[in-house]
């Protein structure tokens, strides 16, 4: 069966989880009018400890408090899942240098590109923004090529 090959874990958990992610965005949007992305937190939080002008722009300083609260909510929500559904902590086998090196590039790329998987991918695509569609198409294609290259080089996981 092709479905079982392409979706070895089915689609229910993916679709339900995705709808909840969109639901969290929708909840904040409807109550506050704010479109919440996840990666601006990386820069706005730096404004607490750095005097670099880029991090102390008005829009960052004005939003840094709620972005901290949003991120805490994300951590707590995932912790609820871990306790209630996952049966405790889960840790990755992906090697530390992949996480660190990839993380640095994610930090540079999401801020240079004005958004990440949630800002462009969920909110921007949901807004039918051409800028976001171009950004998502770019990072998707490059990420697929990169992951397959790393795999072909024999790095697992």
């Amino acid at each position: 069966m092709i479905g079982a090959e392409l979706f070895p874990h089915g689609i229910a958990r993916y679709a339900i989880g995705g709808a909840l992610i969109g639901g969290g965005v929708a909840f904040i949007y409807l109550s506050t009018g704010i479109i919440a992305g996840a990666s601006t937190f990386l820069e706005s939080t730096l404004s607490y400890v750095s005097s670099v002008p880029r991090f102390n722009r008005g829009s960052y300083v004005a939003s840094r408090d709620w972005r901290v609260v949003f991120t805490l909510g994300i951590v707590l929500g995932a912790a609820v899942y871990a306790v209630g559904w996952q049966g405790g902590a889960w840790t990755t086998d992906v090697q530390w240098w992949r996480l660190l090196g990839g993380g640095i590039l994610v930090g540079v790329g999401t801020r240079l590109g004005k958004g990440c998987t949630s800002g462009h991918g969920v909110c921007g695509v949901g807004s039918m923004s051409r800028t976001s569609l171009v950004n998502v198409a770019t990072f998707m294609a490059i990420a697929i090529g990169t992951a397959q290259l790393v795999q072909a080089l024999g790095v697992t996981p």
Partner: protein
Amino acid sequence: MSRRGAAFYLSVLVGGLIFGFGLAYSHMARPEIVLDFLQFEDLGLLFVMGGAAVVSGTTFAVATRLRGRAPLTGEEYVRRLKSFDRNVVAGGAIFGVGWGVSGICPGAAYASVGIGNWPILWAIGGMFLGAYAQGLLRSQLTDASAGPTAAD
């Protein structure tokens, strides 16, 4: 500037809870699942991003048509439209390499902390380093160039 009281922050917290629970429930908080998708071994992630975009997109479309205002801030409902320039493509490409190497993106990384995945702190540390480096460099470039250049 809008009024921001307890109800505002509580609302952001609850929204974040739902968002983070969804990331954990979908397994997108696990780098392995993202890498499986990028390696075409499990395409389920399409339903995570697609499902999220459909729900948020429907919400944006309905709210902007009703032309109301958000109860907690009085803000108008608008869509997320950012200006296009070459940084959108360059940044997307750099992010793509990072996502393909690590299997993790910012929101999923925060959720990964919540599911007990402590090694993800390597990735979050890296993200802050990367965000700091680009901010420092861009601030210096802006200082160096004459006149008030737009920050992005």
